[in-house]
């Protein structure tokens, strides 16, 4: 049972995203900031006539902002369209999805968003669940930021 995965480069490593989650992969235009939103939200961008919320994937994974990233994976999650910033992407390939190896310890946000492993030419890649990278919209987040 092989699935299709989009291979993308972000936060200094290659990851796989299930193609079923991906709407499209595009170059993103100008991003308009959304002040006071969670830091993982870079802002809003127009994609044709649709407005997408741009997520700084690196920040969502608990790392520093990816200021140079201009490409993004577009995904529709819970009726909203999001653009996940990535440094680069390759093509879509079929892979066998394997469960996370036991004994593999992932830190922080990676643990919450990695759902499995695929192997590309002997190199293991984490499978990221984009939905897990969407920041929650709760006020609690803001209070945390304000504090």
């Amino acid at each position: 049972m092989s699935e299709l995965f989009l291979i993308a480069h972000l936060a200094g490593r290659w990851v796989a995203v299930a193609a079923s989650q991906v709407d499209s992969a595009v170059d993103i235009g100008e991003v308009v900031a959304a002040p006071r939103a969670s830091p993982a939200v870079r802002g809003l961008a127009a994609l044709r006539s649709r407005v997408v919320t741009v997520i700084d994937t690196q920040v969502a994974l608990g790392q520093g902002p990816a200021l140079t990233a201009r490409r993004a994976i577009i995904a529709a999650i819970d009726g909203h369209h999001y653009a996940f910033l990535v440094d680069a992407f390759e093509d879509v390939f079929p892979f066998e999805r394997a469960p996370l190896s036991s004994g593999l310890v992932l830190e922080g946000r990676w643990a919450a968003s990695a759902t499995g492993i695929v192997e590309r030419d002997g190199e293991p890649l984490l499978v990221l669940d984009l939905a897990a990278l969407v920041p929650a919209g709760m006020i609690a987040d803001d209070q945390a930021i304000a504090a």
Partner: protein
Amino acid sequence: MDDLLQEFIAETRETLDALSGEIVLWEANPTDRARLDAIFRFVHTVKGSCGFLDLPRLGRLAHAAEDVLAAVRDGTRVPDTALVNAVLAIVDRIGELTEAIAAGSPLDDTTEDLLIAALAEDALPVAQAMAGPQMRSASRSVRLAVDLLDRMMAGMSDMVLARNELARRLRDQPIDPRVEGALERLSLTVGEMRDTISRTRMQRIEALFSAMPRMVRDTATPLGKLVTLEVEGADVELDREMIELLRDPLVHIIRNSVDHGIESPAERRALGKREAGRLLVSARQTGNQIVLEVSDDGRGIDVDRLVAKAAAKGLHTEAKLAAMTERQRLDLIFTPGLSSRDTATAISGRGVGMDVVRANIEQIGGRIAMRNRSGAGLTIELQVPLTLSIIPAIVVGVGEQRFALPRQSIEEIVAIRGDAVRIDELGDSRVATVRGRRLPLVDLASLLGIAGGRTHALAIVGTRDGNFALGIGAVLDSEELVVKPVCPAVMGTGIYAGQTLPDSGLPMLLLDGAGVAAVAGLRFEPQAIVTENEAAVHERGIEALLFDDLDGQRRALPLAAVDRVETVSALAIRRTGGRLHLSIEGGIVPLVTMTEPPATGQVTLLRLTDGVTEIGYLIRDAHEIVTLPVAMASVRGRPGIAGVAVVNGEQVEVVDGHALFAGEMAPAAGRPLCLLHHDGTGWMDTFLRPVLEASGYRCASTLAPGETAAVTLAMDDDPPATLAGGDPVVLLRRRPAMPGEGGIYRYDRAALIAAVAAGMESRRDAVREMAR
């Protein structure tokens, strides 16, 4: 109603077209159940719509066919050829009639009885009357699926963006004027096109409201109830789909109100309410919400009974019910299967309860709230999001960024130059004073953390709780925007109402005024500021006028309420209209006294005003202006007295100015109406109206529906045509009356006012008579 009729015609035509195949098949095989059902549904729908649209002829035909088809469905009639033919003749006739309605041409109804008679079991076969050539008028409306409109809208937005990009590219290089002209034309067309397409999704809520008077009447009449329906805000625009989704909940709420809320006329009379119940349905846009309110003056929800029923049904334990707040108890009405009513009636209470209403509203992202005034009525408020609605907005700039603000939430925008605006630091908060009005100031740039955002202007934003000044960089534009929801991560900030994609092609966030105020931590500081001022005054104490009242008591009245002190003749005081009035300066001032005023001599009068209403307070003697201490002893059982204060070592009762005016406000709220019967010279409006209005009457030259005039004024040589109902009429003379002549000389001001007051009084008596 015209819209509804058009819709009905379109729908009937469509169904008929689709049905023609079914009819042929049914004719071939009369036992075919599926065909039979399709035809039954058609006549049933037509019957339903006819009742609603008041088309009795069509309704009668459809009803007859429905009866027969129902009998066939039940198996009590056999669908023989005669029956099939008779039904088909009726279906054809429905088609003809529909076309006749659409074309507005008459169609004689002589054969309709025959058509209906042919349905009877023992009917003789009737020769098919040849249908005349049908006059089919062109259809004026098309029915579209909403998602087609959505696609159209999305395509349109793409087109606008493409045009904008084209314009930008062309601007970068020398451009041929012919190309420029073509582009301009394109721009114009695209703009108009976008407006039109945007509008296709919008509909005035009137579409929902227009059916209401009929529905209320149809609900109230079988119950023997009288209901006056008032509709406000029918011009609010709402997404078409949203209107459809609101229809059922609203109908349900209104029926509930009429059925359960409003009492029978007899009951209302016994309760001292007007016989006709009042039902107010209103719509308004507030910020990013449309608020629909259904308010009645019926009996409200009997919360105790609701709780008892919940306990009886075992929904909650007694202890839990006892611990509930009033709101939670009221919210029990949303429990499935629970109603405050014991018996279901034909109108409502068929198992579809408020739980379904709430579920429907929440499904479209709305909220439902209730304000219950036990015994006095119920207000149900539906708040539904503005999503997909187009709202007029003002685009403001802060630093490099742009935001939209709903135009209707903005009272005004003022530049911070010049003397009109002043900004002060008050503690750690800032306050803007705009033309003497002090407002808390929220600086948008610092709230949003936008570096380099300088504040050059203030937008005065009105919210439900109060107003505040929002410091912005500049006003850039004013646009109609299609607002869509933003993702939860952005919505969670609480300051945005949605996002939009304006012509610039760059997304823009729509600010929510109330949200901004909340996030900025304004705890409605307009009030806080007032309190501060009051506190300052309190330290000095309130200034009051010390006087001896008519009953000899020494009392004080807040000086701010006293307009002036005058001496008047006791002869000018009359008990008219059931209370004391003073004629003064050609007008009438209502009087308040602690005891009966003297009949002769001179009296001292305090003329009190709250800025709007004026009343007089009679005293024996005014003394001096004193400062009242902050502390006052409370009083017991003395209406009109706010408390007892010690002034110069003496106990002084402080008159409750509020109570004086509150007592005065009651009649003033319904200021009696004078109907001016114009003689065509305009004298009434120019000369008479100000006099009457100054004396506390309202004036009108025509009556609004449902209004009655307390007194009608007319010239004696041109009396009103109808002197119906014995309504008091004051006739005015153009010349002073000779002895023995009736009427009042029109410049005899005092007599005129007195006559109007007397008329008013006679009317009140008459009304009282009728009430008995």
